[in-house]
């Protein structure tokens, strides 16, 4: 547990400072932990595992400004995972599908699972419903890998509008996924 904490923190802190490569490794490793956790918790809803996993990763991304570097990262992730899991079950009104009650003992970071399935929705398809000022910055920066500066030139938006558009667009995506 201590090792996982140190490993993930050593990736998260540079990620917060803008290191995209560290951030990708962080999300990859986090996904393996979360997938295994969700499979245990959602053994009655196997089709939901990859969907909720992606929703969780999007939540971690959208809410990463609420992580306090003084606090254990694993506790932060664990609280988000438990919140999203309860939220999903409430939305499905199927609290009975939970294998057993959510207890504090079941650790997100007990095991990992790398055998990914596919989620039923596609974030890139959900993008189509967003307004241009959010959709275009996301397509250029997040999918095509263009810089914020180039995107600003291509769209005629200011750089800060591009950043705001990405930020709001990802929040809107999370909201759409939650409502599916």
């Amino acid at each position, binding site marked *: 547990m201590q090792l996982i904490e140190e490993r993930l923190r050593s990736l998260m802190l540079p990620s917060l400072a803008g290191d995209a490569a560290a*951030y990708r490794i962080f999300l990859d490793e986090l996904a393996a932990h979360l997938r295994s956790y969700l499979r245990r918790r959602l053994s009655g809803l196997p089709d939901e595992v990859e969907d909720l996993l992606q929703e969780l990763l999007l939540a971690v991304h959208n809410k990463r400004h609420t992580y306090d570097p003084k606090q254990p990262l694993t506790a932060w992730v664990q609280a988000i995972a438990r919140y999203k899991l309860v939220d999903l079950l409430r939305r499905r009104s199927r609290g009975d599908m939970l294998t057993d009650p959510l207890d504090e003992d079941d650790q997100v970071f007990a095991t990992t699972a790398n055998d990914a399935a*596919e989620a039923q929705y596609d974030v*890139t398809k959900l993008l189509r419903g967003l307004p241009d000022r959010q959709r275009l910055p996301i397509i250029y920066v997040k999918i095509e890998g263009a810089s914020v500066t180039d995107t600003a030139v291509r769209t005629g938006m200011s750089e800060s509008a591009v950043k705001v558009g990405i930020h709001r667009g990802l929040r809107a995506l999370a909201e759409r996924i939650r409502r599916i």
Partner: protein
Amino acid sequence: MKTEDLVSFLSTGAETVDLRLPSRRWLLALAGGALIAFLLTAGLLKLNPALWHETSKPMFWVRESYCAVLGVLGFITVVRLARPGLRLGLAPMGIPVAVIAMWVLAVVTLVTASPQTRTRLILGHTAGVCPFLIALVAAPLLIALLWVMRSLAPTRLRWAGAASGFTAGSIGALVYTLHCPELAAPFLGIWYLLGMLIPTAVGAWLGPRLLRW
């Protein structure tokens, strides 16, 4: 969609994250909410003309500290509830302690007062309106705190809403003291507390409705 594609989507072009953003938003909400609360108090209710004179009475400062201490304890709780996985610590437990301290002072005041003045110590001159006026003054603070809470990540929504309401109520009460002529401990222990509990209840109701993410 494959999860590895989502990971690559999220990490591509990831920007630096401003970790001081939550604190800045909280301060902005407190300052903005308190300013509107003050304008409501000064404009709609009028400031207490005897305010300056009352600052020489010890009970004036007891009243100010009561509201301020509850506001600070509430605010610490709010800030912690907005971040996933943080322990709440001792601040929430300080709230009943401060309230009970005021009740003890109220009982002492009532016991030592002459019987014919006791009703006045409890009801003052404004008991009927005080809780509602505090709730009114607290409203802009509640809106501001919930607005910031929404941009963060509370995981206990009802508690997050209630704590926002209580903090708004206590700071609202502190602003309301600029208008309110009441200084008796029994009055503060009952009607001020009720005034703080109205936004607390509203916040607890709104929490699960407004704060989902």
